[in-house]
């Protein structure tokens, strides 16, 4: 009895003490006016950047993951042979100082940078490159290496010429290959030793050559990186980087305004004023993506291009994009983003014309359509597919078409798309490598979860094949412009928007930029 009473009183005392302490520190926070919640850690905070994103990375092994949250972290740890220019998807030297491509496009020779070391102290050399590529080629490749076939699918073999020269032999000419090597998934070079030590899976033990090295990953909370002092190039300005995971968009905004994060991403347009009025800044990066609505071209009534055009005419895309994304996505006139080679300002989709739409649809007897959509926000559609479908539903009702919507979470949605039971579906694409083929091929792919319009046009396919083999340049770009024109004329898709990436950052953060491939290079960013 006595013992029990004493225990109880102890617990009670502890609780009261906790509550008291909380109250005290709470009031302390309020006097600090929320600018720096952890006032005592200011000095530590000075050399630490906190980047808040929506979710944990899937993992930190570039061969095993496919998501943007992982990519953002990995680009600071790893490097590939090539990298993208800061403002475009033009490729530049990375771990390879220079390269030669044979005239037939079947042999690539890379001359590697000398004196580069992995963060575990091992040397970067031709063997490491061979190891990384062969890991993603048959027979070693596993089916869960999501980008292996995309990046290295056209590679036949890899040869070590000498310690700093690598030769890659191709099965067929593939112009996008150089762009692929600059990608943040599949292409980055991982320390072979780390892979061997960790059973060929460095999801939780990443080790590359980049400006930051991995410290820790607390699941659900954060990944901590620290400066790689042995980095071969310009060393990182800020000592530590913390990627913090805050799922909810508005909570991420609160975190930024409260000083719990220095930079946040994945926000939508509605919070911009809130961020700016708190004295923080907005970074607006063009997005390498397309948000679209696709017609099921294998099924009546949308096997008829006229009906497709009529529906496209019914939707006022600029108005829809303006209110749904509040100006933080550009209404799309083409499939390719505007900065992409092959984009042409002359391409136009079916123009908004209610009367024309009405009469065509009435003639064709289209009174109802079945739309399917996804219920999660996607990088190309921050407002989520449901809101988009509902908006389109509103437009269709004005031309006498009643639309029913079925929304699914992403996993189920992909199954439904595969099953093909829909008239219209909503989809989108985030570019991988900055090459136009990466976008236009979506209308030629045989996989129905890629080619959701199930568009099957032999001329279009032939042109796609020609584009892949044609060396980069104006001639190749024209091919893609032509493809755009075919797609627009056939009204296969109704391109809706190119989502911009919106980031918020605190006013003392300098030199922050967000690359159009959806990643952030933080080594140049400092906190004033």
């Amino acid at each position, binding site marked *: 009895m006595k013992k029990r009473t004493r225990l109880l009183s102890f617990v009670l005392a502890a609780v009261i003490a906790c509550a008291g302490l909380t109250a005290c520190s709470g009031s302390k926070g309020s006097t600090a006016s929320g600018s720096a919640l952890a006032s005592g850690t200011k000095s530590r905070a000075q050399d630490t950047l906190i980047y808040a994103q929506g979710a944990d990375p899937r993992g930190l092994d570039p061969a095993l993951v496919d998501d943007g949250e992982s990519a953002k972290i990995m680009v600071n740890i790893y490097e590939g042979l090539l990298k993208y220019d800061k403002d475009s998807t033009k490729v530049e030297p990375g771990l390879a100082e220079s390269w030669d491509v044979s005239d037939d496009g079947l042999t690539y020779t890379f001359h590697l940078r000398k004196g580069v070391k992995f963060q575990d102290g091992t040397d970067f050399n031709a063997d490491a490159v061979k190891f990384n590529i062969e890991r993603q080629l048959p027979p070693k490749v596993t089916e869960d290496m999501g980008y292996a076939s995309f990046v290295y699918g056209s590679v036949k073999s890899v040869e070590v010429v000498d310690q700093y020269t690598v030769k890659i032999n191709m099965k067929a000419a593939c112009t996008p290959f150089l762009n692929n090597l600059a990608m943040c998934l599949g292409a980055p070079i991982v320390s072979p030793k780390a892979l061997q030590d960790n059973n060929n899976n460095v999801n939780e033990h990443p080790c590359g050559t980049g400006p930051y090295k991995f410290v820790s990953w607390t699941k659900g909370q954060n990944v901590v990186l620290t400066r790689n002092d042995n980095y071969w190039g310009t060393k990182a300005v800020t000592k530590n980087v913390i990627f913090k995971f805050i799922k*909810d968009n508005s909570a991420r905004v609160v975190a930024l305004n409260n000083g719990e994060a220095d930079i946040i991403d994945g926000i939508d347009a509605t*919070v911009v004023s809130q961020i700016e009025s708190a004295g923080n800044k907005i970074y607006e990066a063009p997005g390498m993506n397309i948000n679209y609505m696709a017609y099921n071209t294998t099924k009546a009534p949308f096997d008829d291009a006229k009906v497709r055009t009529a529906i496209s005419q019914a939707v006022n895309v600029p108005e829809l994009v303006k209110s*749904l994304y509040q100006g933080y996505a550009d209404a799309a006139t083409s499939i390719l983003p505007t900065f992409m080679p092959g984009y042409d300002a002359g391409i136009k989709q079916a123009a908004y014309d209610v009367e024309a739409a009405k009469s065509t649809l009435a003639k064709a007897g289209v009174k109802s359509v079945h739309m399917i959509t996804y219920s999660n926000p996607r990088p190309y559609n921050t407002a989520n597919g449901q*809101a988009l479908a509902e908006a389109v539903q*509103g*437009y269709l009702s004005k031309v006498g078409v009643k639309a029913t919507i079925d929304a699914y979470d992403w996993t189920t949605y992909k199954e439904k798309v595969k099953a093909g039971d829909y008239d219209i579906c909503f989809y989108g694409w985030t570019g991988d490598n900055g090459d136009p083929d990466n976008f236009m091929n979506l209308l030629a792919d045989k996989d129905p979860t890629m080619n959701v319009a199930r568009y099957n046009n032999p001329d279009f396919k032939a042109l796609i094949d020609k584009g892949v083999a044609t060396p980069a340049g104006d001639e190749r770009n024209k091919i893609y412009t032509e493809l755009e024109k075919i797609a627009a004329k056939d009204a296969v898709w109704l391109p809706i928007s190119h989502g911009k990436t919106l980031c918020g950052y605190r006013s003392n953060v300098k030199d922050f930029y967000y690359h159009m491939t959806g990643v952030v290079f933080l080594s140049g960013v400092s906190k004033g």
Partner: protein
Amino acid sequence: MSMQHAELPKSEFPEQTADLLEKPESRLKEMWESLCEDKAALTGLFVILFLVLVALFGPLIMPYDPNLSNMTKSFIWPNSEHWFGTDQLGRDIFSRVIAGTRISLTVGLSAVAISLTIGVVLGSIAGYRGGKVDTVIMRFMDMMLAIPSILLAIAFMAALGKGLDKAVIAIGFVSIPEYARIVRGCILSVKENDYVQAARVIGNKSSRIIFKHILPNVLSSIVVRATLGISTAVLDTAALGFLGLGVQPPAAEWGDMLGRARGFVFTAPYTLIFPGIAITLTVLAFNLLGDGLRDALDPKLRKN
């Protein structure tokens, strides 16, 4: 005087407490009368009646089509035209809240109907038969109870897909064990009563005994549980909707509205406030009524 201890006649009047004017009457009528004296429960009842009217005649009082988007009118603050403002897609929130009443009440009532029916049947069988049947059924109920109902409902929804009908099934299914337990408990205690025994002796069929003699006796406990169950079901529906697993668009479900409003809490707080109030009010009303019914059922509580 010798050692005789005779008790004086005891009167009906208790020493201190109040129940002075009570006459023995039928249980439900008694419950109703006691309910009428309970201001809180009456308030709940009136709010529920109001909500039912709104659900029935909602389309008549809705100023706008709740489901039709109009991209020219997105995010209008509450004003005389749009009392609760408009949402991202330019839909009138007032109309949507009204439309949501019907959805929430439908889901609440149907889900309770499902769990009630299955729960009562399972509980009756378990309680009446006893033995192995009882063990098997109740162990199964234990298993279901051991999984948090919201997780179970989420898993159901993820498997079945979104939709009003599916939400009803998911929510109805996960609360079967509660009813089964209550019914079983009541039946166990009623089973040994004389009149049930008598019915058995004269050879009534089991199902007849259960429906004719036992269920009416457990009815009042079930009524209470079901009333409170509706409030739980409304909350669960909202939770599923909030997680994006509720109804198919463009249906106006309160939880779904909250889930979408979450992104606009600072720019358009009214999108978050009104559906939340609607949920709270509905749940509150059913809780008030349920509490009132429970108190009315339990004379011991009533005195307090």
